[in-house]
């Protein structure tokens, strides 16, 4: 099994990885199937994740964080997703979409007001970007916010917003058009809307193909008023701000994808040793061996890709291309491994009670969320300078 230290992880990262691995096995694995079947949000698991400091991983201690880095978060996401993706995406969205924009773009006052609860995991944050008319084309935002008597008045609809409707959701950062530039280009800003603000309604919870134990909702803002000091970062910088948020988020989703891909290997190793056909364990057949070998190769290479992107990010180097590559190959690996793992399990792979059935349902969204695979290819090509004007490379 892949429990041996490797890749030259620092001691503290390796210790964290082990602690989260242990947590996922002991606290998540035995109970998550039930939440998943009921499409219920696992409040008690989230509380335990909060108690071990996972929601504060990349934030400084002065805000209640753990003083770690984004790579530590990625390792935690991988180990959680190795067992279950619903809890992993709850953490991913809570940290990189909920708390990170407040930390990165908030004023000292805003950080002090919101971060301690978000870092403790006692409250969750969400990021409202995608709208019914489009996600990838974020510049086409329809939601508006106008200043009126010292308040932002927000009108619009957001869709597919993770962590936005739980009992412990504290806030949603929404992107909205706050004006027009000289050529009519929309000026987009980010505004924090606390849960319970009048005019902010959480719509029906979606029935999803996967990630069933995570919270995803449609949000409606109608004459929703928040104080002017809820503007996050500079007015008109909302678009630029969330691009950085998305680049980081891609590395995190890559880590989560690698977890799912590795979880498929874990399950198949166990099952192929136990299950017999024609008088011997199915692991004795090359048809199974080759499948598992391919699965391990995909998980391994995808892991290297996200480690590399994370290392560049932490070193302050450009990482847009590497993040896109990591997200692309890792979500592919997750999808391919989920398909192969269910095949190894045969009929049992089609049963929801087996983890691989969950993995199969959870894999598809990885090719869509936080930038589709097509967007990743677009970004990679753009970074290479491939375009209508011809390649930049000589």
């Amino acid at each position: 099994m892949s429990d041996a230290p490797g890749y030259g992880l620092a001691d503290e990262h390796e210790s964290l990885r082990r602690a989260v691995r242990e947590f996922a096995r002991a606290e998540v694995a035995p109970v998550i199937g039930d939440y998943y079947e009921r499409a219920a949000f696992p409040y008690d698991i989230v509380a335990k994740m909060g108690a071990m400091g996972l929601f504060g991983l990349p934030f400084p201690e002065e805000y209640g964080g753990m003083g770690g880095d984004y790579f530590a978060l990625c390792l935690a996401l991988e180990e959680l997703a190795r067992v279950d993706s619903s809890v992993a995406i709850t953490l991913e969205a809570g940290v990189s979409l909920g708390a990170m924009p407040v930390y990165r773009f908030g004023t000292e006052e805003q950080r002090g007001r919101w971060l301690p609860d978000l870092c403790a995991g006692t409250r969750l944050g969400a990021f409202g970007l995608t709208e019914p008319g489009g996600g990838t084309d974020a510049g086409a935002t329809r939601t508006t916010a106008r200043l009126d008597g010292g308040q932002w008045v927000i009108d619009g609809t957001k869709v597919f917003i993770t962590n936005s409707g739980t009992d412990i959701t504290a806030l949603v950062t929404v992107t909205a058009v706050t004006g027009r530039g000289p050529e009519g280009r929309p000026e987009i800003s980010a505004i924090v809307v606390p849960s319970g603000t009048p005019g902010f309604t959480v719509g029906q919870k979606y029935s999803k193909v996967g990630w069933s134990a995570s919270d995803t909702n449609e949000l409606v803002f109608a004459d929703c008023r928040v104080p002017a000091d809820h503007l996050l970062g500079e007015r008109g910088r909302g678009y630029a701000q969330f691009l950085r948020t998305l680049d980081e988020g891609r590395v995190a989703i890559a880590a989560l994808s690698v977890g799912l891909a590795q979880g498929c290997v874990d399950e198949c190793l166990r099952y192929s040793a136990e299950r017999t056909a024609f008088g011997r364990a199915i692991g004795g057949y090359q048809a199974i061996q080759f499948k598992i070998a391919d699965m391990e190769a995909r998980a391994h290479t995808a892991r290297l890709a996200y480690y590399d992107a994370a290392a560049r990010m932490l070193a302050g180097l450009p990482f847009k291309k590497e993040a896109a590559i990591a997200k692309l190959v890792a979500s592919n690996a997750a999808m391919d491994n989920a398909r192969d793992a269910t095949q190894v399990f045969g009929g049992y792979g089609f049963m929801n009670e087996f983890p691989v059935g969950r993995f199969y349902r959870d894999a598809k969204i990885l090719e869509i969320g936080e930038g589709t695979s097509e967007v990743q290819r677009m970004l990679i090509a753009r970074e290479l300078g491939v375009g209508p004007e011809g390649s930049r490379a000589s």
Partner: protein
Amino acid sequence: MNIVVLVKQVPDTATERKLSAADSTLDRASADGVINELDEYAIEEGLRLKEAHGGEVTILTMGPDQASDSIRKALSMGADKAVHLVDDALHGSDAVQTSYALAQVLKKIGFDLAVLGSESTDARTGVLAAALAERLGVPQLSLASKVEIDGSTVRIQRITDYGYDRVEGSLPAVLSVVEKINEPRYPSFKGIMAAKKKPVEKLSLADAGIDPALVGLAGATTQVVDFADAPPREAGTVVKDEGDGGAKLAEFLAAKKFV
């Protein structure tokens, strides 16, 4: 309060565990070492008592070099420092010798409360708490599912087959805990980082004032003379219900003298 938690590193129960063919002792190389499960509850209880009453939690481990992994984990959970009794001469020590060695260290470092899991998942002798209390001449409060400290009095609920007994004793004391007592915390990243800077004192036999003649395989009071793998489980009996299933089950149970 000076709390010492005794932590043993044992082979992971999730992996295949073996004895070494050479001397019938545990083959430590064949399995990953982890903190004995019940000792995690002891660490948690030590930390909670410290949080409630102040003081310091010291981890005490006897074991080979690789036990330092387990010590580090205990420190990352929140213990303040550790003492590691490590010496090749300890190899093969049995429960009686182990209690002597650990009692010597406890005398040397001092304690108000020594806390440990009620047994280890490897040897499972379950006698260490009693042996330590005897050697140290202090009360033993065993199998605790709840602990309260009031001044120099320790009160526990001691689990029994019929419920629990209320037992009390005075500090200093030896306390053994069961898994009902709490839910051990997981190390946080902050705890992991802090653990890197916490002191771990390594003691040899000489440092701890332990007589080498009284420990180790050669002088052990018990010996493993032989061992064998557990026999594979035999297939069970399938009772097919053809209208007389109940009678067949009753016959089966009667034949085995269950009814």
